[in-house]
């Protein structure tokens, strides 16, 4: 891990892509995420000595899990002294690979598939201070290969303990209704953020998702693609 150079992030490109990179400038998105950020920072890990686990999930694909997970991670890095580990736990889509330039990098799926590989060792630091990444991995899991829950939780435990107290682990997951990983990961989370897309997420799907997550602690919700108020951006009330 120390041998590998920090991953260079093209912040300007990210900003152009609509991400809320930490900056002096006012960011509507960063502003919208502020309450969530505060909650995330205040989240205490269930077991002391490890980083808090924040699972970002949703009912269906394309509702903005990856987008919001990355944004949350980026904007957290703007907070003083924040240490953030962003884990791409969606082996099907690997949504973070494209914006962060992680394509072809070894990552979580490789660690899960190979007992000899240490997940903690695959974490890459980035040029953005405080931000570390765990790519999804080269081994794309097919629907025919159900993930091992034990291995996944074990890997998560290793990662968070290694990351240590005071850190925040943000896990981007596949949709709840389309895979098992999200529920497994949420089961170990200290906080679950369910992304809901305005005018798109069906009520039934959301209800179903929430019922599947009912045993998880601190389940909150983000409304994505919210209607812009005509006067401008609607603040969180």
């Amino acid at each position, binding site marked *: 891990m120390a041998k590998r150079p920090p991953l260079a992030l093209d912040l300007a490109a990210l900003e152009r892509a609509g991400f809320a990179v930490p900056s002096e400038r006012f960011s509507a998105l960063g502003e919208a*995420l502020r309450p969530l950020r505060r*909650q995330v920072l205040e989240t205490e890990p269930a077991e002391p000595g490890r980083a808090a686990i924040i699972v970002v999930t949703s009912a269906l694909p394309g509702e903005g899990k990856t987008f919001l997970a990355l944004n949350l991670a980026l904007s957290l890095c703007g907070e003083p002294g924040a240490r953030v580990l962003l884990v791409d736990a969606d082996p099907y889509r690997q949504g973070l690979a494209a914006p962060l330039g992680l394509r072809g990098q070894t990552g979580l799926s490789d660690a899960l598939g190979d007992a000899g590989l240490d997940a903690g060792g695959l974490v890459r630091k980035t040029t953005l201070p405080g931000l570390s990444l765990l790519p999804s991995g080269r081994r794309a899991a097919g629907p025919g290969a159900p993930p091992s829950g034990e291995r996944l939780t074990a890997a998560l435990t290793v990662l968070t303990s290694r990351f240590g107290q005071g850190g925040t682990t943000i896990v981007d997951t596949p949709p709840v209704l389309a895979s098992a990983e999200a529920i497994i990961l949420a089961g170990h989370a200290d906080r679950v953020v369910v992304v809901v897309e305005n005018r798109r997420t069906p*009520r039934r799907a959301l209800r179903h998702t929430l019922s599947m997550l009912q045993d998880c602690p601190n389940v909150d919700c983000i*409304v994505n693609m919210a209607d812009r108020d*005509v006067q401008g951006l609607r603040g969180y009330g």
Partner: protein
Amino acid sequence: MELILRYVPYPLLQRLRGAWRWRWPMLATAWAVALLGWLVVALMPDQYQAATRIYVDTDNLLTPLLRNITVDTDLQNRLDVMQRTLLSRGNIAQVVKTAGLEAEARGALEIERQYQRLQEKIAVKAEGRNLFSVTYRHRDPEVARKVVASLLDIFVETNVGHSRANMDDARTFIDSQIGEYEQKLKDAEHRLADYKTRHVDVLAATGTSFSARLDSARDERDAAQAKVREAAVTRDQLRAGLGRVPQFLDVDSPMPLVIGGANSAVSPAVRVRQLEVQLAQLQAQYTDRYPDVVATRRALEAARSDLAQPAANAATPSRGRAANVVYDQLSLRLVQAEADLAAAESRFSRAEETVKRLSALAQVAPRVEADLADLNREYGVLKTKYEDLLGRRESARISAAVETSGDKVHFRIIEPPYVPLTPAWPMRPLLSSAVLLLAVAAAAAVGFGLVKVDDSVGAAEAVAAEFGIRVVASVPRMPSESGDAALRVETRRLAAAATGLLAAYVAVLAWQSLVSHG
């Protein structure tokens, strides 16, 4: 964009936002409906419309005769009658035969239905005061033309008969009117004459006004009165004078004194002869009671008695009495004055009577004059009306003569039965446009319907309330290069699909006009 949105009512804005999600289904619906509709329009069977236009010379035929006598013959009414008679069962049967439509229907029921259909489909319309059109549509232009042509024949035939009947009607009507007015005129004449005879005294003075007549009568009466007075004065003076003059004069000389006129001094025999001549002259002019006649006769008698008693005169030759000539003359004048007075009195009383009568009549004269004016006016009105009717009858006779001589055209076929090359139905451009509108409406309906049945979650507050969950952030769509580009691409595609629909519409129209004209 936001500026526009600011003026859209919020509920509608929400609907539009919701519908935005269904933009592609909506567009697909529009396309599907449009294509299907255009196909249907294209496959609709052509209907050709045969039409004919005829000018019916109703104005010349009826109106001059009946103008001002009856209410103008109602066009709609006439059209109704025409429609009913033209589209009668018998006519339709004839049309079916002429147009060769018998093969279309078999069996009584079917034929009945065919007739009914024809009655409904043949349109007889009034296109103006005197312009009528007959139209009929059919798949086969030739059949359509034949139907209209045979109807036109029937139309002309029946309407010629009609107008003749109308003409006769008009004439008998005028005749009866003339008879009526004749009677009225006679009555009025009678009334007028009656009235005139009853009030002849008032009406005697034609030309001068009644009051003028009364005034002149009064003047006359006053003049007569003055004359009476004058005559009375004269008589009184004479009478007084006579009292003072002695009848006889005592004469000493044998010779009678000659005082007055020669006749007084002449011998009695001469005087008698003179008086006899005078009397005869007077009697030739006047009646016996004329004062002069009376006076002369009396004088004659006196003269005769003088002649019979010459002894008395001769007996007193020296100191005899001679008749006073002055006295004689005065008494003669008195007689004259008395006669004058009597004449003046009678004149006066006659004038007085006239004044009385006239002033009595003056009370009623104005009413009589007014009544007479009324009667005269009534008579005049009736007379002009009567003469007008006579003139009309004459003109009717003339126009009838013209008609029977065949010079006059009552029906002019403005447009002989013809069928345009392009079918009258379906009006493909119109229907295609309607299809486009329908497509758009269907798309809107689909969009709004989907929004209605849409079960997706809504705004943050609604989610929080409905699912009992905390909403920690509400994030709108963030602008980004790729996202914006994608949106642009999508918008462009959407626009392309929409303009494609419009282009298809234009193409459909162009194709239709090409087909219909080619």
